[in-house]
């Protein structure tokens, strides 16, 4: 399915998802990288050592969710924009998603935006909580969007232009 549509299958996602126990503990990266390509900035950028150094540059990331604190530095550094941080402990009924965003204008904190799933369909609205865009992120902003908890594992993008309306 991924190779036909660009949308990973449930099985693909199962392989990269941290455990329920880890997800319940708060912010953690979800590395949606399923293809061996020559690429390793996730491992070299992780300050926690949660993504192990690659033996072969073509390896898939070897990620230990127990060591991850959800800092999202890998989110800005992944050239494939394939890493997200999910915090399912954000509030009683909402979760926080940190996602990479390279579109102008950047959304403004406090605004409500349409949120999209991996297939690009709008599945709800979320609230922009924070936008990180420091020079060391090199123009890949990390947008923090608060979404209903039931959507935490589906929301991966923002509706383009939603912030203009």
């Amino acid at each position: 399915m991924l190779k036909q549509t660009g949308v990973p299958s449930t099985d693909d996602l199962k392989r990269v998802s941290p455990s329920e126990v880890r997800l319940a503990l708060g912010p953690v990266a979800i590395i949606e990288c399923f293809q061996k390509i020559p690429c390793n900035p996730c491992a070299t950028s992780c300050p926690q050592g949660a993504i192990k150094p690659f033996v072969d540059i073509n390896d898939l990331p070897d990620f230990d969710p127990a060591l991850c604190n959800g800092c999202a530095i890998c989110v800005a550094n992944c050239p494939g924009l394939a890493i997200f941080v999910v915090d399912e402990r954000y509030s009683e009924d909402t979760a926080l998603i940190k996602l990479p965003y390279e579109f102008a204008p950047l959304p403004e904190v406090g605004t409500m935006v349409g949120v999209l799933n991996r297939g690009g369909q709008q599945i709800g609205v979320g609230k922009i909580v924070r936008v990180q865009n420091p020079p060391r992120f090199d123009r890949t902003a990390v947008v923090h969007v608060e979404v209903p908890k039931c959507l935490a594992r589906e929301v991966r993008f923002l509706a383009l232009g939603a912030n203009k309306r």
Partner: protein
Amino acid sequence: MVERFNICIIGGGPAGLRAAIAAGSAGAEVLLIDENDRLGGQLIKQTHMFFGSEKQDAGTRGIDIAQQLVNKVQSMTNVKVYLRCAALGLYDDKVLTVLHEKKYRKIRAEKFIVATGASERMLAFPGNDLPGVYGAGAVQTLMNVYGIVPGQRVLMIGAGNIGLIVSYQLLQAGVEVVAILEGSPHIGGYLVHASKVRRAGVPILTSHTIMQAIGTNAVQAAEICALDSHWARLPGSEKTLEVDTICLAVGLSPLSDLLWQAQCRLTYIAELGGHVAWRDANLCTSEPHIYIAGDVAGVEEASSAMVEGELAGLAAAKSLGLARVDVDTAMSQAREQLIALRAGPVGEKIRTGLALAQMRGDEQHA
């Protein structure tokens, strides 16, 4: 007057720039020529972060890599650059003829490194000559070099890395990408690129192709259809999409004209994109004064083009006795980097192609 250099490099893209830096750092008198107004080749429009490892500037955007390489080249007093300089002929008395700012000139060098890159392929379909049908490279140049969007509703043909990346860049420029069509049953580019355009709402239609571009004076629509497992049209699957731009990203072919003319031994290797020169492990062709690097040696990623450029630059300098003390280490490190970059499943096609390109002529026909 004939100008003389140790090494002349033809093409100022990622391979040529790195070749110039490597040869220059070995102490060679280098001339780098490019037919464009500025150095950088395709890097100057690559706004995405590069893959690879730190050694190949992974995580850095192509546009920034270009600037770093150009700055380095310009800081080297023994590297001269001619822009708006097109190579015309490369002769066996080691003379290159060029058209430089409308003047015909001759350049003599002991070694030449051909880093001319590749050209985009065309696709045959009715209406492909209508205004509004672009190559993906042209769209990228218009947008990322000149800040001009090609249209408002684009149909992308080809889901290789270029089709996927240019689609993403169109979205960044505020242009709607109606769909990405791919004739083969699988997405050819990196799946992370596919996923990021898909989640932005762009459908990727594998086993689909364009039948015709529709319009009187410019593209107004495109008729598309699905393909069966034998690449034949599925009757009844035809659909018309309202678009003002059709962007073709259907592959690249090595720009090997100069190598043909210089009588290097060339072979057609589909895995490398077309006709490529035979080369040894140091990228020297069958003509001992001509080296190759980058897409002209086989269509691949810019990361490996840069490493090939470095290897060819070092090897050419070493062959002239101009080696840095660490040349052997640097060359073997470059070869190891190339092996590592190509080691994974996505490098299989390149590995197959390169094995053929390094065989001697008699082995190729065995």
